[in-house]
């Protein structure tokens, strides 16, 4: 990791208008949590539905996407990444630094708010908060790795990311049951399900896959994404087409 890369990346991520979207998304989640509490009288079940569907299913991938564009996609697009690449630094070091900043941002803007949303909307002795917290951390790691690499591989990362977040995770999963098992959210949720044990069913915390499968898949996807990201960054071509 390189402190200077992390500093520049963090300034870049938070300095642009993007930071505003991060905050808006966060406030939206907390606002919905308050509405949920008011509407369903702080029932853990309603709280779980909010955390599962909206926090894990929508906010987390969107946040991952926004953050990934902020930590690397925008720099590749406008060419300013050349200042980092034209240095005697290992590309791996650059990518790891950017991933660390990306994860930290997703943690602050999505994982912590998810836990807060569960507490606001209704919980029982902090069980739900803890379970969703752990799931959200795992999902945040995978989403950060996937979307950062997507930002290196294609200039259309936002389009692909949105398609994934909105179509794959929510819509397609509803129609094609098989797709539901191939989803970062379901993998991460498998851990929450196990943590809640016998109460999981009652609180609608159910995953399509078992915890072992979920963790293995999360690990595989994350490692594969990081590996591909480093490889692509090594051979990233920059050319201002005349």
């Amino acid at each position: 990791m390189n402190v200077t890369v992390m500093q520049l990346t963090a300034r870049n991520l938070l300095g642009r208008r993007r930071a505003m979207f991060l905050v808006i998304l966060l406030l939206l989640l907390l606002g919905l949590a308050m509405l949920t509490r008011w509407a369903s009288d702080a029932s853990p079940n309603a709280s779980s539905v909010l955390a599962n569907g909206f926090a894990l299913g929508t906010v987390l991938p969107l946040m991952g996407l926004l953050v990934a564009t902020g930590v690397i996609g925008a720099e590749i697009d406008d060419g300013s990444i050349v200042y980092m690449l034209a240095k005697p630094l290992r590309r791996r070091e650059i990518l790891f630094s950017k991933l660390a900043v990306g994860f930290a941002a997703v943690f602050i803007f999505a994982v912590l708010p998810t836990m807060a949303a569960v507490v606001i909307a209704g919980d029982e002795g902090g069980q739900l908060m803890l379970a969703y917290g752990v799931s959200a951390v795992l999902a945040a790691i995978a989403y950060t790795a996937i979307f950062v690499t997507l930002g290196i591989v294609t200039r259309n990362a936002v389009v692909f990311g949105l398609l994934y977040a909105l179509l794959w995770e929510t819509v397609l999963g509803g129609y094609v049951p098989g797709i539901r098992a191939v989803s970062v959210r379901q993998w991460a949720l498998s851990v929450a399900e196990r943590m809640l044990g016998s109460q999981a069913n009652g609180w609608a915390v159910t995953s399509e896959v078992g915890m072992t499968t979920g963790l293995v898949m999360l690990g595989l996807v994350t490692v594969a994404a990081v590996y591909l990201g480093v490889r692509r960054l090594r051979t990233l071509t920059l050319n201002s087409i005349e």
Partner: protein
Amino acid sequence: MSTLELVGVSRWYGDVVAVNDVTMTVGPGVTGLLGPNGAGKSTLISMMGGFLPPSSGSVTLDGVPVWRNTEVYRSIGLVPETEAMYDMVTGWEFVLANARLHGLANPVAAARAAVDQVDMMDARNRDISGYSKGMKQRIKMATALVHNPTVLLLDEPFNGMDPRQRLHLMELLQSLAAQGRTVLFSSHILEEVEQLAGTIEVVVAGRHAASGDFRRIRKLMTQRPHQYTIRSSDNRALAAAMIADGSADSVDVSSGALAVQASDFGRFVRALPKLACDGDVRLLEVTPADESLESVFSYLVAR
């Protein structure tokens, strides 16, 4: 002292050939990469800077390939054409960050020296987003100079500079070359290159069209057949006189105006007023028909 060597370098994107079989050696001193827009100058600089692999051929710095070799950046300083930087930080912070990224022993002193060299000490604590184009260009220079590179690659560095900034940058590049560094910059303006560069490499349509010092390039450009369009009070009399005199190679009178081709530029411009005066012909209009840089360049390529 460092030498960049390109041997048989080509680069294509799908069906489009951007650079076609270019072989050149760039050594210490100032080298100007001259060519019209779209000639492949940026593609060449990207390959020299290790940001694009050649489709064929090799680009080496002192014998070591530059592609996929981040160690070369210890000796290369790059000034990209793109204007985007990390706009949220001040000029000083950005140059300092670049010094740190290079892993220099004393980044603060290095950054100070670089910022001082480009004359930006006074404005160093302002955000980059508030800089003028010329100031941004100078901060870009500072980031490229911060690690004292032996090779400096600049892509269109004079774009958007006012005359004073231009002069300042020229002096800076000349002093860097005097220290034995290899300085290469691209431009599409002949005068710019002529004033500054000891060696000129001309690139047209992806091909290496000419190479040499500015006298040689000037000569190549002035000795080509020149074309003029002339309107006068008596086109036919003037045409006859020019052909008889031998100062024009061919004259076409069919279009109402005279289309003249002359291979000896100097002789033609001296002869024309004299012939007109002797024959009592009034010259109404004399226009060079092909003085655009593009046509000059394409002549060099066709040759």
